């Protein structure tokens, strides 16, 4: 079993370096290498590795453990599945770009590191793989070479904050439990003191929160998601951010829900429950605020990439709320959404990447009416958008239903209102995305655009098809999720293959819903096709302007100020961006640095005087010091 783990990692990491060097021979080879490596790793993983297998290692006197459990098994779907499809997609997407060896090196390194994170059951290897993941993704973020200073440094700073927080927490955990094993951490956390407990959990959650783009730590995400090549962004947003959720889940679910019953028996440490509750409430609200703010900012964007990036942040907010609420239904919905978000956001980023490759831009004000040029991309986007918006019969409906039900049954009514508002507002940007890119008038510039090549369409369509499958048979995903929850201590999770039900006895048969919708869809399509014959195509210039002649400067594109009234309504919320707050912090830090500069003058002689002053102080007080 050990050999299989090592083999999988060896294939991914070795493939990374092979891809780098094969690029010298022919750039296409490195893409093929990446695809081969991910495919082989996937096949190997799902044929050779069994859930629950684990191996003990002792390195340098420290007990380490590698293994796979039901919980990490669930996340391996996203990592390996999305990794394989994205590497297939990359072959054509990256075709004529420079430095492909560099790209694939880091691509495979980050996928291998994610697998390593899922495989490691101890904090040492966990942290090492975490850092490899951070660095490789950082190197891809700066791959384009533009805005490196702004985006790359932002990402690096936040990653560093997260990593240091995590490292501190790991060291504290080791000091408390004398072990690096995650299972020991989970079992022993209830015995630690109050302040240590809070500090360890908070630091760990900061570390994971950075990757999961929780509200105050999300600033890096938009730039990083939109600046890296889209084939990687689908992995970045789809899988890499889920590593944050993975860690979040470990801390939240295992260390909190699992242990709290034993604490309540131990009357002396009742404060631990309070601390858990406080952290839970904080993160519920942070998740909800993240969801709302992400949605609102997504509305404002005119760039499709940034729109999707903000949408990712919003969706991650839902997941975090779900996990932080901690009831069975909420957690189930969160895990479902985690997998599903990987699927539909991966598709959407791939679709945007295809559009970028074919038209050269992702600015929604510049392109429109691509529906005729890129029908397959449109279908994939449409399905993913429907899934994102949570409309049946596609899979997005399932987690939303579960989440609302979970929140209402556990009494979080205000959160429900927030999330409901957020997901309603999400319809707006979903519509804008579809309309801006695919519908509307055809532009002159996009006249000669063709559909993306098959190797890019196939992954998209495959993932879009998955949303349909999971929408009709959510039980396929409920099963591993239930196993995973069983593993982290939530027993007796009930689920049904095709029927959603709630505690009040309402049931929704997804099969029936699907059939009904198909019937409506087909009849509507028949109706539309019949009526479409007489459609007249007009150019963009042919717009009624109430008799006034538009000047050259007037932009008549629909995309600009698309939701202006709505934006005006929620304008107060836009005022305080997290960016501004961080800038204010930065400015006040600079004042501190100015003070430091008056001590560290950069003048060697001043330093020499400091040394001598220090020596003199030592000499004068030598009797009291030594």
């Amino acid at each position: 079993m050990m050999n299989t783990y090592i083999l999988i990692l060896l294939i991914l990491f070795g493939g990374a370096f092979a891809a780098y060097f094969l690029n010298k021979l022919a750039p296409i080879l490195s893409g093929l290498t990446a695809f081969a490596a991910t495919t082989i790793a996937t096949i190997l993983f799902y044929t050779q590795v069994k859930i629950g297998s684990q191996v003990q290692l002792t390195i340098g006197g420290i007990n380490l453990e590698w293994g796979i459990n039901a919980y990490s098994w669930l996340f391996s779907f996203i990592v390996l599945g999305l990794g394989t499809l994205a590497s297939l997609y990359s072959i054509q997407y990256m075709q004529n770009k420079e430095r492909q060896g560099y790209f694939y090196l880091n691509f495979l390194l980050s996928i291998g590191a994610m697998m390593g994170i899922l495989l490691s059951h101890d904090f040492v290897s966990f942290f090492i793989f975490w850092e490899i993941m951070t660095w490789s993704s950082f190197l891809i973020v700066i791959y384009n070479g533009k805005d490196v200073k702004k985006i790359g440094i932002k990402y690096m700073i936040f990653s560093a904050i997260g990593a240091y927080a995590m490292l501190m927490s790991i060291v504290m955990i080791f000091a408390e439990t004398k072990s690096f094993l995650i299972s020991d951490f989970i079992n022993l956390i209830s015995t630690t003191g109050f302040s240590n407990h809070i500090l360890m959990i908070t630091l760990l959650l900061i570390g994971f929160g950075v990757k999961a783009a929780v509200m105050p730590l999300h600033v890096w995400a938009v730039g990083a998601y939109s600046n890296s090549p889209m084939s990687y962004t689908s992995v970045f947003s789809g899988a890499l951010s889920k590593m944050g959720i993975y860690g979040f889940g470990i801390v939240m679910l295992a260390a909190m829900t699992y242990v709290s019953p034993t604490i309540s028996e131990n009357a002396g440490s009742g404060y631990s429950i309070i601390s858990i509750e406080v952290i839970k409430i904080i993160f519920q609200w942070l998740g909800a605020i993240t969801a709302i703010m992400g949605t609102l900012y997504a509305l404002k964007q005119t760039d499709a990439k940034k729109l999707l990036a903000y949408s990712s942040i919003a969706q991650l907010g839902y997941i975090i709320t779900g996990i932080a609420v901690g009831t069975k239904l909420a957690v189930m919905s969160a895990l479902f959404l985690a997998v599903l978000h990987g699927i539909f956001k991966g598709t959407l980023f791939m679709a945007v990447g295809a559009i970028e490759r074919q038209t050269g831009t992702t600015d929604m004000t510049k392109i429109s009416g691509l529906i005729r040029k890129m029908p397959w991309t449109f279908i994939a986007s449409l399905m993913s958008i429907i899934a994102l918006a949570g409309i049946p019969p596609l899979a997005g409906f399932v987690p939303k239903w579960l989440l609302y039900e979970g929140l209402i049954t556990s009494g979080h009514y205000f959160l429900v209102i927030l999330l409901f508002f957020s997901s309603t507002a999400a319809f707006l940007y979903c519509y804008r995305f579809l309309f801006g890119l695919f519908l509307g008038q055809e532009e002159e510039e996009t006249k000669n655009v063709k559909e993306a090549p098959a190797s890019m369409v196939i992954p998209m369509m495959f993932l879009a098809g998955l949303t349909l499958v999971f929408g009709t048979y959510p039980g396929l995903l409920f099963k591993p999720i239930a196993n995973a929850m069983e593993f982290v201590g939530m027993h007796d999770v009930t689920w049904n293959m095709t029927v959603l039900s709630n505690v009040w006895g309402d049931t929704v048969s997804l099969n029936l819903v699907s059939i009904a919708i198909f019937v409506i869809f087909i009849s509507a399509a028949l109706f539309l096709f019949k009526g479409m014959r007489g459609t007249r195509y007009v150019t963009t210039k042919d717009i009624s302007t109430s008799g006034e002649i538009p000047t050259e400067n007037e932009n008549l594109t629909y995309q600009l100020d698309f939701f202006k009234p709505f934006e005006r309504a929620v304008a107060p919320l836009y005022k305080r961006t997290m960016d501004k707050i961080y800038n204010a912090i930065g400015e006040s830090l600079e004042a501190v640095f100015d003070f430091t500069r008056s001590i560290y003058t950069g003048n060697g002689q001043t330093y020499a005087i400091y040394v001598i002053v220090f020596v003199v102080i030592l000499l004068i007080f030598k009797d009291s010091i030594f």
Partner: protein
Amino acid sequence: MFGDYQNVVTMSVYGSSIALILIGLYGVLIKKHLMKIVIGLSVVDSGVNLMFVAVGYIKGGTAPIFSPSVIDSKPLMVDPVPQALVLTAIVIGFAVTAVALSLVIRLFKHHNTARIDQIKSLKW
């Protein structure tokens, strides 16, 4: 060996080494010209070397060399260890001075001045 004048010798040897160290340090701390700073460093170097050798000196001792005439008589010899250390220190001091001076030349070529109050590129 020096009889009543022991204090005079002690003061002249130790005192001059302390004086050299302090004078050199003063140059390093106060002088604004880079050459003066390097000269100060070299003066401190000299003072420290003198201090080492003086500490190793033994009254009435001879140089630690067993010439044919003294090889059997086992005379009193001064401590050879500080001398070996100072030997190294002098050569290294030369290397340090050479590199420092080349940096001075480089800085002068770049800024057209060798006064540190006028070279501001690394200060704020």
